């Protein structure tokens, strides 16, 4: 069969591209060989295909038993197993060349069920035949419908796109127009959109009136080139193209299922032109998420060539597509529209540009102001909107902690600004209606910090002390530790053990460093609060409990990192002796000092190598000697652990060697 195929192809080689033919020949050769070896019983099918590749033009159809027999064989195989790419090439060529007239052409087209892929080459040749042979319109329609059905199975689209203009020219044929529009819709790239094509389509529109297929194609043109054409789609129009009565669809699915292939059903998923907007009454106009649409006036500095390469976010339909185009995604005209699609949200998560987020912020702020702050009744749309926001929030998790941190920050700032300004009328007019007393405010802040503490403990537990989550939580405590000094609020709230210990025992040095910084800030706040209390003898004071908690943490931290006395009595960590013994960990009390702490171990090893480059055996304990110890600390501080530096300098008064019992910790 391979030889014959080769022969038949070279017969026609005058009209086709030689190199491409050779390539497909090689492939067909290979596959044909394999098939022959695999199953001799398929001989009749091979012979049938051979017949169609060789049959001479003008062979009579009526009374041609051979043709009937071969057609039956092909149909049987097609509907049971599907056709190989080579067979499809041969049969499509046979059909579209009208070798034996129209009726076998239709019959062949109707059984063109691909087993795997459809060779692009065959489709391109068939499209060329559309123009050359006198194929009846109904058959042409059938062919285009077939292309639409198998579009996702065509092995490449580049050559089809190359003949975009050629395909476009069929649009004037009234019966073909809807299907051609659909095909163009699937093929269109930004570079295909030109003013003359827009004008042609508009001309058709004026002739045919409102036609969904024109509308959809034009709206895609608008996505790519909003500067050329504009269009507003009525909300009652369904999105996407009509699903035609496609004769191949069920057979195709059956074949693919049998062949164990994943059914690619993108035929209908590729085009959601516009989200249906349900709001008939325009009362809550701010609550509609805007539809994703491409920006009209791009930054003027971006030149034309780079702009051609940009991909509008609307065009992306999968995560992998997004990853592929990450560097050239064009943001939509309205940032609010991002909230409507999870894919867009993925992208939003990576967006760093300030003005982009500011746009989103303006939109969200305005919607929230208009619909919730200035309007009291809640409605279906409002709930919908809030649900949307919730899911977005859920999507951008970790964001919650950040929000709470911001809330605290804003509150405290509000307090510090207004407290200073209290000579001015705070509740001037209706613009600010918030009027609360200092103690009331203090209580609310305390409640917030406690609430976040509980939330954080629980979150860390659930997420297995996720480092990222921990980082956001520490962000929060960076704010919370400074309430007195930075914001002038006489209130200090310590983190709960559920936050403190995971941070101290974290495996990444950054968390430990930040905790050290936070403890350092707590200390400064507490000492200055205390000294102010003494000086002014004011009634306010920070509860004894807070000092106790702080000291408790501090002692533990110093014991753990510095004194190698982790399992000291009076700590929150109660581990029974025998359990420790069972674990077979040598010197368990020293496992979390600056040298053995999992977060710093690698630094210790590195330091050891730098300090004693000659030594073969690593003996970390040798760092504990007085001199290397201070060098080691210096080395750590030089790695950028400023938090540790502050902590050590402020809380450990004497630079003493570890193990020396006098690692003095600050006590009150």
């Amino acid at each position, binding site marked *: 069969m391979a030889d014959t195929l080769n022969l038949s192809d070279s017969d026609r080689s005058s009209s086709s591209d030689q190199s491409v033919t050779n390539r497909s020949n090689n492939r067909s050769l290979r596959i044909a060989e394999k098939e022959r070896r695999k199953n001799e019983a398929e001989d009749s099918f091979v012979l049938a295909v051979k017949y169609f590749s060789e049959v001479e033009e003008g062979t009579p159809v009526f009374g041609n038993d051979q043709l009937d027999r071969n057609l039956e064989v092909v149909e049987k195989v097609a509907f049971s197993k599907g056709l190989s790419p080579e067979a499809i090439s041969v049969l499509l060529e046979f059909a579209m060349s009208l070798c034996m007239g129209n009726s076998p052409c239709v019959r062949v087209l109707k059984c063109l069920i691909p087993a795997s892929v459809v060779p692009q080459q065959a489709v391109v040749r068939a499209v060329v035949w559309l123009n050359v042979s006198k194929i009846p319109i109904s058959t042409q329609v059938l062919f285009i419908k077939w292309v639409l059905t198998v579009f996702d199975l065509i092995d490449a689209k580049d050559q089809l796109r190359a003949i975009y203009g050629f395909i476009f020219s069929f649009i004037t044929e009234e019966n073909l127009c809807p299907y051609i529009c659909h095909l163009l819709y699937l093929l269109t790239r930004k570079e295909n959109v030109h003013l003359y094509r827009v004008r042609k389509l508009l001309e058709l529109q004026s002739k045919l009136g409102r036609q969904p297929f024109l509308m959809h194609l034009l709206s895609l043109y608008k996505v790519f080139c909003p*500067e050329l054409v*504009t269009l507003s789609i009525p909300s009652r129009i369904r999105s996407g193209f009509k699903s035609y009565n496609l004769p191949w669809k069920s057979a195709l699915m059956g074949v693919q299922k049998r062949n164990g292939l994943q059914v690619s059903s993108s035929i209908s998923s590729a085009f959601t032109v516009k989200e249906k907007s349900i709001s008939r009454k325009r009362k809550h106009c701010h609550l509609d998420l805007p539809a994703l649409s491409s920006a009209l006036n791009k930054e003027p500095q971006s030149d034309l060539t780079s702009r051609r390469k940009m991909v509008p976010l609307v065009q992306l339909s999968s995560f992998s597509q997004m990853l592929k185009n990450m560097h050239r995604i064009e943001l939509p005209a309205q940032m609010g529209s991002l909230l409507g699609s999870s894919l867009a949200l993925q992208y939003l998560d990576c967006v760093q540009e300030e003005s982009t987020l500011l746009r989103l912020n303006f939109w969200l702020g305005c919607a929230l102001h208009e619909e919730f702050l200035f309007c009291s009744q809640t409605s279906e749309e409002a709930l919908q909107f809030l649900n949307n926001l919730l899911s977005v929030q859920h999507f951008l998790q970790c964001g919650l902690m950040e929000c709470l941190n911001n809330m605290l920050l804003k509150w405290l700032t509000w307090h510090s600004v207004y407290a200073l300004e209290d000579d001015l009328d705070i509740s001037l007019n209706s613009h600010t209606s918030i009027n609360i007393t200092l103690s009331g405010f203090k209580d609310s802040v305390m409640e917030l910090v406690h609430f976040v503490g509980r939330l954080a403990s629980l979150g860390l537990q659930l997420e297995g002390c996720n480092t990222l989550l921990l980082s956001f939580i520490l962000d929060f405590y960076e704010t919370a530790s400074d309430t007195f000094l930075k914001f002038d609020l006489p209130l200090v709230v310590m983190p709960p053990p559920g936050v403190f210990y995971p941070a101290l025992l974290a495996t990444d040095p950054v968390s430990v460093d930040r905790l050290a910084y936070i403890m350092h800030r707590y200390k400064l706040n507490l000492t200055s609060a205390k000294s102010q209390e003494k000086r002014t003898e004011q009634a306010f004071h920070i509860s004894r409990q807070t000092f106790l908690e702080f000291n408790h943490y501090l002692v533990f931290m110093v014991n753990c990192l510095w004194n190698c006395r982790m399992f000291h009595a009076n700590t929150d960590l109660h581990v029974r002796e025998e359990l420790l013994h069972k674990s077979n960990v040598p010197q368990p009390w020293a496992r979390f000092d600056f040298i053995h702490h999992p977060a710093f171990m690698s630094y210790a090893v590195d330091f050891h190598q730098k300090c004693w480059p000659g030594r073969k055996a690593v003996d970390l304990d040798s760092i504990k000697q007085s001199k290397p110890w201070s060098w080691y600390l210096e080395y750590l501080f030089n790695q950028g652990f400023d938090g540790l530096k502050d902590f050590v300098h402020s809380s450990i008064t004497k630079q003493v060697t570890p193990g020396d019992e006098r690692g003095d910790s600050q006590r009150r």
Partner: protein
Amino acid sequence: MEPLGESVMRTPHNGAVVQRRSKTRSYRRSYRSCLGTTSRLCLTPALTTRRLNASRRAVKPQTLTERVDPAHLALLVKSEWQLSYVTPLYQFRHTQLKSYSKQLSAFIVAERQQGLAVEVSELQNSYRVSLSVLQGLTESENDPETVLIQIHSKPLFAKQDEPQRSVWSGWLTCIQGSPEYLCSLSKDFTCLPLFGSRGPEYLSRVVKSWFQKTFDCCFGPLEINHTSLQWFVALWVDCHSQSNIQHLKMLWTVPAEPPLQIMYTVDPQDAWDLWNSVKKEEAAKEAEEVGCIELEEVSGYLEALKSHFYRHFRLDLSAGILTQVSTALGLAKDTGRIKMSNSRHVIATLTLLTECALLKMPI
């Protein structure tokens, strides 16, 4: 500045721009430094203490006719405008107004004939839109130029040669917008927070929708609240010596059953005399406050008006709210409608309204 007439002596003006108290500014700086971390959804420029000025410069009458096209001025002055506030426009360029005009007219046509696509081209035969800079209508150097939008159209059953008529107009402006706010925005944004429109509602809607889609901004209604209306009362009455206010009319809504609306009309001379009695002596003011009207004076004036009313009618207007103010210089309604009848006070009016619009910006 205009030469001051004799009658102006009682309300001397100096050209000095009122400085906000330096104290306030330093707080703001401290606020900024506090904001160490920023969230992805909380990046709006730092502005917490935005509020209505407690003190504002008395109206400096300006002859806008010299710097603003008289036709434009006539358009501004003759009609009543419905106000909205607008969040900052993203990627708006004053140099692109021509192409915006094309886009907007195509957009209007497309909106009118749902489902039919429209080429974005020079000529739409049903609508002609022009966006232009309203030259000269700015006050401080930070203010972006005012943009005027006009829509012309032919009536439905017009004759062939009949010219297109103006069917809708609107403008976007920023007069003496808070410099802190304006400077805090990045270059990608243009802040024209005050939007006035006049014409059929559907066109307003379409124009707003186009701006939203094109510049990623949001529109919201701008009501003129009780306090701002009181300011208008004071600012206008204060001008009486330069241009006769003819009358001072205030509409009060009193919560009674059934709801009671009270139109309180004051003789211009009486209003002026009362104002002078309430106004602080210039000498008593601090140096930087000379030529300014203080909120204190405004509320004092309103109190005086209310107690006068109470003496005559035994009805305390404090229970109600001011919903509309008008003099010969202009009209302001709480629903956000404004009319500026005298071109000399356009800037002052728009300054106050810009401030109101900026207050509405989401933080």
